[in-house]
């Protein structure tokens, strides 16, 4: 028997406010030494709960009500706290989604690396330090012998994530649980981390649970895949087998997300927004973005892409007038508008609306839906009473939400529903241009796709333009007509989507495009091979 981890009909229940919810139901799982099992599903599917249960841990308010978790022939469900502490960190390790939140900002990387092995008595601090250097090197971190002396804020996000993986591998664990380790990273850094994870577990012959919502990512690292939904198993099997011929409809839907493309080549004439030679930054003389020129036509979808720090959001702030540019002009309808939002006319404000990345913070938690959507109506169009109520209901209908949401608070809605409310709020102003700042990146793939479909439907009905700001090229592929690629505050390439995807001119565009994971288990190998040849 080579099973390092064996979970048998595991059921976990959660208790909130006297209600019981089933988080996981009847899950079986076997993991062999050296094997990587991918666990995928959307948020709320119970992926993380399962990952934590594999370490014999449940979150507060949750309980393992049935089943067993056997680690190397040892039952974890009724193990004592002391036994579990011994196992965790040394035999089972955990890598969380956000390395930035998991590191203590006040200690150097290597100190945090050494904490577990020294505490468990496996190594002295000196040995741990040597081990760290070895692992840093294996994970391709720059300056492996000195990077450990940096503080978490002194390394990049991708490096920090790799440092965290090194920490997890510190005691040569038998199992590592990866909980969305690349979700918070840019596509170009995601590749480095993925390659590092794969190599590191291969060399150590470590078994791993890899939790993610991204099927394309999981197919690069996992030997087998489990699809979870609402706490139940939908389907499991070999990665290749599942990608080639999925059995369940839900898995098929997940697979189709990335494959869907649409070609909406429309003819555009009327310019809605024009940016002329804009330089902008938060201090005079220090420009975050430079030399920005572009036009958006009526009914057109323009996508601004680039990784974090490339100046995309700064650009959006210039357009909305929150950050007056140091140089250059913003023209709306071929007329120059004030660079400062406070001096813009109500009509200009109305015609330019914005949708944000995190619908949770974009909606006031203390206002009911009727107020959130109703306010722009009352503010711009002077509607009140019955007319306002009617319009709000019409808007709810447009965003495909039932009318009884009228009296709800945002907290009673799911992430996708909240984003729909944000869309309705923007629509209420009857805008000509909607800026969509990473609107899908906080959502699950299927939900994100629904949102994009909704936006497309609304566009055909109402004819406004969208400016998408995103690092997710899948969104771009799905919806944009024209693409603007930004890199370090400059536009490096701009043009028609089809042309750019077919033959990118700029090296960075090519790097960016080739970094989007594809649903092909050999994709990462081929890509790394190709890049090696080029360099």
């Amino acid at each position, binding site marked *: 028997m080579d099973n390092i981890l064996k979970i048998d009909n595991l059921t976990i229940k959660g208790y909130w406010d006297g209600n019981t919810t089933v988080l996981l139901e009847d899950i079986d799982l076997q993991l062999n030494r050296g094997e990587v099992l991918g666990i995928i599903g959307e948020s709320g599917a119970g992926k993380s709960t399962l990952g934590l249960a594999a370490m014999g841990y449940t979150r507060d308010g949750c309980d393992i009500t049935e089943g067993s978790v056997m680690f190397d022939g040892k039952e974890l469900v009724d193990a004592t706290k002391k036994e579990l502490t011994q196992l965790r960190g040394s035999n089972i390790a955990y890598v969380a989604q956000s390395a930035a939140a998991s590191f203590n900002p006040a200690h150097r990387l290597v100190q945090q690396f050494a904490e577990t092995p020294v505490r468990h008595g496996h190594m002295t601090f000196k040995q741990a330090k040597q081990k760290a250097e070895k692992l840093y090197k294996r994970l391709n971190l720059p300056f492996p012998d000195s990077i450990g002396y940096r503080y978490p804020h002194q390394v990049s996000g991708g490096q920090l994530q790799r440092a965290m993986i090194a920490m997890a591998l510190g005691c040569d664990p038998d199992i590592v649980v990866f909980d969305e380790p690349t979700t918070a990273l840019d596509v170009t850094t995601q590749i480095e981390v993925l390659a590092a994870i794969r190599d590191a577990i291969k060399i150590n012959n470590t078994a791993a649970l890899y939790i993610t919502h991204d099927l394309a990512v999981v197919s690069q690292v996992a030997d087998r895949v489990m699809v979870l939904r609402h706490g139940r198993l939908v389907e499991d099997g070999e990665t290749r087998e599942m990608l080639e011929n999925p059995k369940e409809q839900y898995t098929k839907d997940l697979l189709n997300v990335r494959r869907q493309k649409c070609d909406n080549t429309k003819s555009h004439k009327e310019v809605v927004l024009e940016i002329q030679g804009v330089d902008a930054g938060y201090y005079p003389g220090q420009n975050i973005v430079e030399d920005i020129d572009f036009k958006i036509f009526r009914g057109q979808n323009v996508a601004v892409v680039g990784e974090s720090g490339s100046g995309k959001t700064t650009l959006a702030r210039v357009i*909305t*007038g*929150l950050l007056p540019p140091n140089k250059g002009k913003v023209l709306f309808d071929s007329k120059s508008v004030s660079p400062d*939002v406070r001096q*813009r006319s*109500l009509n200009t*404000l109305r015609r*330019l*609306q*914005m949708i*944000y990345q*995190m619908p949770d*913070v*974009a*909606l*006031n*938690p*203390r*206002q009911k839906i009727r107020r959130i959507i109703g*306010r*722009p109506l009352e*503010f*711009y169009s002077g509607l009140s009473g019955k007319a306002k109520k009617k319009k709000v209901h019409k808007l709810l209908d447009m965003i495909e939400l039932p009318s009884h949401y009228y009296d709800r*608070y945002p*907290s009673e809605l799911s992430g996708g529903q909240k984003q729909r409310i944000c869309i309705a*709020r923007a629509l209420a*102003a009857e805008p000509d241009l909607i800026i969509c700042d990473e609107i899908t990146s906080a959502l699950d793939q299927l939900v994100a796709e629904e949102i994009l479909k909704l936006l497309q439907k609304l566009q055909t009905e109402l004819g406004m333009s969208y400016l998408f700001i995103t690092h997710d090229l899948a969104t771009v592929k799905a919806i944009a007509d024209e693409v603007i690629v930004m890199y370090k505050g400059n536009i490096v390439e701009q043009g028609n989507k089809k042309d750019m995807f077919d033959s990118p001119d700029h090296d960075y565009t090519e790097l960016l495009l080739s970094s989007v994971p594809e649903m092909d288990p050999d994709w990462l190998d081929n890509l790394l091979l190709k890049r090696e040849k080029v360099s």
Partner: protein
Amino acid sequence: MTFIKLLKQAPLSAKIGMVIILINVAAALLAPVIAPYEEAQKVGSVWLTPGQDHLMGTDQVGRDLFTRMLYGARNTISIAFIITCIAFAIGSGLGLLAATVEGYLDSMLSRLVDIIMAFPPLILALMVLSIFGTSIPILIFVIALIDSTKVYRLARALAMDIRALEFVEVARLRGEGLLWIIRREILPNAAPALIAEFGLRFSFVFLFISALSFLGLGLQPPTADWGSMVRENAGAIAFGITIPIYPAAAIAFLTIGINLVVDWFLQRSAQIRAQ
């Protein structure tokens, strides 16, 4: 949801808190009706033990302690309540304004608050009271001003956090006025923390008044207030007489009651907010 339904849902701790507050308020309102004697009437000898004539005994000059307790509730609660309300009106109003407007106004107000806070509160109060004399309006004004600085800092910090959230940006982009943003977007989200602080401040005001009374600059005798009743009778403890326990317990009782209700309130608002 109707008010009564809401009350029914309250947890036991909050219900206990509400009963305590109700008892205190009732005592304050009905003092002249319930009290067996006049507020400043001498009715017996000094520090009599509790008995049939005097429910709680008598104080250091032979006044009926039960009567004094009732009038004390009336004076202390009403004055402390008014002071806390004024402190919150000034402090949270300016704090929210400063955080929302930023710039010069924020710098000026914050430095002004720093200056006031640089003085030890008791010394500042003593100074102002000895210059302007000790009347109740001045007492209220001085303590409210000193307390408002703390409320200002809290309100400003809260508003700074909320202002950075995107729904505030949405309102700004919509072109909403300053007042609307403060009242509709920021205040409702800062309210739970401010209300919790209200309960705490209210208790501190009690203690502050009693400290001033002890120094002869607070409520003037023979007006009864719980704080000075503790101080004036403190000596009795040395003789094993329990008189000062009553006003001290009353202060503790009311403080706990208020905080029980505030806790429940905080929990409720966290539920709306969370998830």
